[in-house]
């Protein structure tokens, strides 16, 4: 197996920035990372493939992404008013393929949340479709397969 370490480094750098923006609530910059047609998906069922016709925890197109950022920042949502910064760790990056300018990558992920009931952690498998954009990327799809999503979660006051 031949490794494209340059691509791996580029992708890893991009995804680290994405995670850092979410941890630091730089939501408007985060929106700029997306293709307008991009989809942010948190499935209920990790085996689902037809997300459009399946119930998800979140299925955000551009309009819903904007609305969600408004919700997280406006102060209208009581569940988000006291939300602290989160901590995300990512590792185990693997490029799945690189076809027609679209790079598919997956990695391990854990989000730690400072909640009034304690520190909660959400391990997940993350999958991205990244569209090449000049020297960088735009997100075409982000799928977050959070553990327990098909059993039960707690309510969530941030983005995975």
């Amino acid at each position, binding site marked *: 197996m031949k490794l494209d370490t340059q691509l791996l480094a580029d992708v890893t750098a991009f995804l680290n920035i994405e995670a850092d923006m979410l941890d630091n609530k730089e939501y408007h910059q985060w929106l700029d990372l997306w293709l307008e047609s991009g989809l942010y998906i948190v499935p209920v069922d990790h085996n689902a493939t037809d997300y459009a016709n399946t119930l998800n925890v979140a299925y955000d197109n551009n309009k819903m992404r904007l609305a969600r950022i408004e919700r997280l920042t406006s102060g209208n*949502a009581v569940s988000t008013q006291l939300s602290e910064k989160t901590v995300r760790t990512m590792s185990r990056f693997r490029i799945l393929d690189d076809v027609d300018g679209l790079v598919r990558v997956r990695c391990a992920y854990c989000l730690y949340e400072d909640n009034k009931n304690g520190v909660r952690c959400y391990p997940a498998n993350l999958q991205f479709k990244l569209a090449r954009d000049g020297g960088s990327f735009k997100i075409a799809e982000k799928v977050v397969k959070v553990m327990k999503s098909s059993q039960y979660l707690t*309510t969530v006051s941030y983005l995975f």
Partner: protein
Amino acid sequence: MKTQIKVKNINSTSDLVLDDRVHKSLYSDEKIFEEELDKIFNNTWVWLAHESELPEAGSYKTATIGRNPVIVVRDRKKNIHVMLNRCRHRGATVCEGKTGKTKAFTCPYHGWGYGLDGSLRALPKPEEYENILDKAEFGLIKVRTESYQGMIFATLKDDLEPLEDFLGGAKKWIDLFMKQGGGYPIKTLGDHRFRFPGNWKIQLENTTDAYHFPIIHKSFISSLDEEASEIFDFLDGDGFVEDLGNGHSVMVMIPELVDLDENLDEPIPERYGDLAKQLADEGHSDLEVRRLVRAVGGGGFNLNLFPNVACSMAFFRNLVPISVNETEIHHIALGGDGAPEAFNQKRIRLHEHFQGPMGFGTPDDGEAWERVQAGSMAGTDGWIMLHRGMSKLSTSADGNVQGAVCSETGMRAAYQQYKKLMSQSSEQ
């Protein structure tokens, strides 16, 4: 009004429920919680599933009745059975997972095999049971089950009144609720499940609490277009809450959307313009398009069925008590069985928008409920007030007690049934 009531005379749980208030210990006392599992959940009709969750022979769903794990399953003859999920040998569960499909239930421990109807079919090395085990007596234990409009209920109490008598005045509203398939039978489309650190009755109260909607759901309302946010501005409208008896109640928020078969000639709302166009382009007649569009957002009311299910605008809300201060909620999405894909897809998107762990509504409800659990512990005056709207009650068209849309009539109805069941002597 006197708000300090002496607590020292309280000696049974039923003293903790007055006409206009309930005591905070109902949220936090572990002994009361255990008593509720016995006197309520083991003594009434408990909702478990909708028939569409069991589409084929062998389809099953696991659930609980109080502290009893059960299996709801469709057998080869398409009959539905509810059985305790407990092997008759040494007690292991014989079925795991939320839902699934199987040919039989085989216990993983020593291999006793049960049919879809629960009958014990075979067991490994039967010689040692010669003359001491009659297979006919060792099937999975059946639980009495009855259905109404596809809603499957079960009860551990064999002499309880028939389900339809228990539902009584709620049946009319269930019939109306089932019209939201847009001309197709109702079908479940998956569920959101989440837990919150609070007592189950805090959620039970919430289903007919219109008072909270414009306040806690400000973030949801501000994410809608103007036309839709006006629809959710219902506190000054003609809605009402009606006590339907046996702890059931209905809260009508949007009277125009009570009967989805009516007013099909109204203009198509702008937010559903794309859906209407897509359905028309697919060749659906004007009447079909109108029927689907009118049904897509669900009905204009929440029906709360005591103790554990609600037909809430566009979905089923099922509550599962986990412990005195933890509750699991299932928000089950609904659509039309055989309905156009665009219709069901839109219903799924609308469900995701409000419901579930990342919805624009549920997390704010969850925050409020968690705060009720925590805040209600403070102080010496332990009463939770439920008297909103009590001075302006009227009689409904069906002869029931009715209050304003933002009254606490539904909560009072639920707590009176609660009191009735909790006052029964233990007979386990």
